[in-house]
């Protein structure tokens, strides 16, 4: 039995309603846990005064410089003593989840047992960077909790100016649009750079995220410095059984309104069988709708937005030559305003061991460039902003490509006396590719 609970009239109001209540969970823990009794006292105070009462500090585990988020209460009485002493220290351990956030119940129960033994018993699945957040532990228990988690196959995540915990979508585990092995890519890249995560020494945070297709279910383009998004470069595949099933269930109006008209580059046409058969070949995909009609996709016009694959489920699928587009520079508001990742590699094949090795090398090169060239508290997108994309590409040895821009330069403010040499490079690359 824990000590007497505090009155929490405002939090109590969050116990009603149909959605699962975190307050009910806090109360269950508070029955035999003094830390949670006092945590509820402080949280109720925040609800009443509309102010936060945590400050950071320095708490860690042996051998690592990050991964623990220290929280000390600032809610003190007139003598400087914590008003809620049993929650005066309420740190979080950030722990990396299995890629794709898959668990079996044995593992989850083990995590619960460890956290009940050493910490508050409150766990968030998952934080916005993907960590399992074990919330609420005293300084003197942090090492023991970490040791036991670590012995069971789990490792701390990132915090501060460091490589951060990563996320990948469900991908190859259960999605027909997956264009590469997302979990493998995540583990190859992240686990190759753990020193940057565990001993923070970068100019600022650096995030990788891995989405299996352009639907980008882990929001890599907006939320990561290095977004790895699955795509394909050959023709879309078709499965006539499913394209016919779509048409028979939805008919011509849905096909026109939801599929043809919504293609952003007008790459889709409906054709009669004979006309479509004549088109079938190097750049067109032809899916049967019924015995007479065909859906014809001009793959040279297609930008792989993936909308029609979302609608005609199973009928239209990614091509066979699969890989990723890599975009750099996505980030949130601070300090220049939100910015999207932009393309630095339009297509990188990702199938063989050598392909994954190349991805790892590129990731390492970008991290090295960031470590050496970014200003303090500057995200890599801001570095690219400051030095220009071309300088960034040249430093990494990447060739320019029209897929990196929305449109060419719109002003003459550029010194072009190297023009002929650049044209020669372009011609030579074209020759090599041919």
């Amino acid at each position: 039995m824990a000590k007497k609970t505090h009155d929490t009239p405002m939090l109590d109001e969050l116990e009603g309603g149909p959605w699962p209540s975190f307050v009910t969970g806090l109360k269950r823990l508070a029955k035999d846990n003094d830390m949670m009794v006092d945590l509820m006292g402080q949280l109720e105070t925040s609800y009443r005064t509309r102010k936060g009462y945590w400050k950071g500090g320095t708490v860690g585990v042996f051998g690592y410089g990050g991964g623990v988020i220290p929280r000390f209460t600032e809610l003190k009485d007139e003598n400087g003593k914590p008003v809620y002493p049993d929650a005066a220290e309420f740190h979080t351990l950030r722990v990396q989840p299995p890629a794709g956030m898959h668990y079996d119940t044995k593992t989850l129960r083990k995590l619960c047992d460890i956290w009940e033994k050493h910490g508050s018993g409150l766990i968030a699945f998952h934080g916005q960077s993907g960590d399992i957040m074990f919330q609420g532990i005293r300084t003197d228990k942090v090492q023991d909790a970490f040791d036991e988690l670590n012995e069971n196959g789990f490792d701390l995540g990132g915090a501060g100016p460091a490589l951060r915990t990563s996320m990948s979508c469900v991908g190859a585990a259960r999605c027909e649009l997956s264009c590469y092995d997302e979990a493998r890519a995540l583990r190859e890249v992240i686990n190759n750079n753990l020193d940057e995560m565990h001993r923070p020494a970068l100019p600022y945070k650096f995030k990788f995220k891995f989405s299996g297709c352009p639907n980008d279910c882990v929001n890599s383009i907006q939320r990561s410095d290095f977004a790895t998004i699955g795509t394909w470069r050959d023709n879309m595949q078709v499965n006539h059984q499913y394209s016919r099933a779509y048409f028979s269930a939805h008919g011509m109006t849905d096909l026109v309104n939801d599929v043809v008209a919504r293609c952003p580059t007008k790459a889709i046409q409906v054709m009669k069988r004979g006309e479509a058969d004549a088109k079938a070949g190097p750049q067109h995909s032809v899916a049967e709708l019924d015995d007479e009609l065909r859906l014809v996709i001009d793959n040279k016009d297609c930008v792989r937005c993936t909308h029609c694959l979302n609608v005609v489920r199973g009928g239209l699928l990614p091509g066979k030559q699969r890989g990723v587009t890599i975009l750099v520079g996505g980030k949130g508001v601070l300090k220049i305003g939100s910015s999207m990742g932009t393309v630095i590699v339009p297509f990188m094949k990702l199938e063989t061991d050598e392909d994954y090795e190349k991805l790892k090398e590129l990731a390492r090169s970008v991290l090295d460039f960031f470590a050496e060239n970014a200003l303090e508290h500057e995200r890599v997108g801001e570095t690219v902003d400051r030095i220009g994309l071309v300088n960034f590409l040249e430093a990494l040895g990447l060739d320019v490509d029209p897929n990196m821009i929305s449109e060419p330069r719109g002003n003459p403010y550029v010194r072009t006396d190297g023009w002929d040499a650049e044209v020669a490079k372009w011609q030579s690359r074209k020759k090599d590719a041919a």
Partner: protein
Amino acid sequence: MSMRQPIESGAPDPMPLLHPLLRKNYGKWIYHDHPRPGVLMHRAASGDEVWTVKAGTQRQMDVHTVRKLCDIADQFADGHVRFTTRSNIEYMVADPAKVDPLIAALTEAGFPIGGTANSVSMIAHTQGWLHCDIPGTDASGVTKALMDELHQEFVKCEMPNRVKLSTSCCEINCGGQADIAVIVQYTKPPKINHDLVANVCERPAVVARCPVAAIRPALVNGKPSLEIDEKKCMCCGACYPPCPPMQINDPDTTKIAIWVGGKNSNARGKPTFHKLVASGLPNNPPRWPEAAAVVKKILLTYKADARSWERMIDWIERIGWGRFFEKTGLPFTKYHIDDWRGARRTLNASTHIRF
């Protein structure tokens, strides 16, 4: 006593944790169906089918809740689960006959079934007063209050396309981009506790942090401190994390703003950032009814007016921002016109006008 060296194992391998059917058909899926809200059926090239039941959780879970979810997995769902990026839990089963009993068990335990396809999914959110060191509001509480209001939209999947929501407890927006985002908006410059600045803050770092160069070092009452040009300050709060004596939070002047039209998918149009549509809403715990009312009004207007497969931003781009404000009844003010860097590209450089 020698200290234990950490095992730097990094991100764990998910393969041993996968449901056996997911492991067997890894990378070989060819089709999925959405037979009812909260249920997905995936088919592999081998002909295998796996059924997924998705349920909402409170994200911030006590171990008893997690164990309850495990009990359900062991009893009804082959002992495997996964979490989505929005903290929904997914149970995979090989036998379709297990779907109904699984749904019944989750429902009985209070976990709503839904969040698939054209639903309003669970809100991506931050830490708030529970754990953040710089929060302007709570996060779990805002989310609980909103999801109570939107529960039917989670379980029914009746929206024109999927809807992603987020909440953030300061302007840094850790909750992320969303179709509708609920974000703290500060309205007054920070109040500086000059007694503490010299001891707590690295002053040059704070000066460098300000996006509009409104902060400079100053001697105040004989002590080294900082001062703010209040005409320049746009109240973003960026100085507060590196320097807590720059107190930006205030019970009354910290407001809530609503942003719409963020989309990270590349489907149809390119990804977009959300845009400010409402602000000045009170930070009103425990249920934030004013913010919830605006979110609901926008959602219901979108639901009634958008065409199939239009995400929030697709719908607004078709009807135009003028009609968005008209249809939602939200006022349009001078604060909606951007004046940050690059703002001119947000102005209408054409005679394309809707009447």
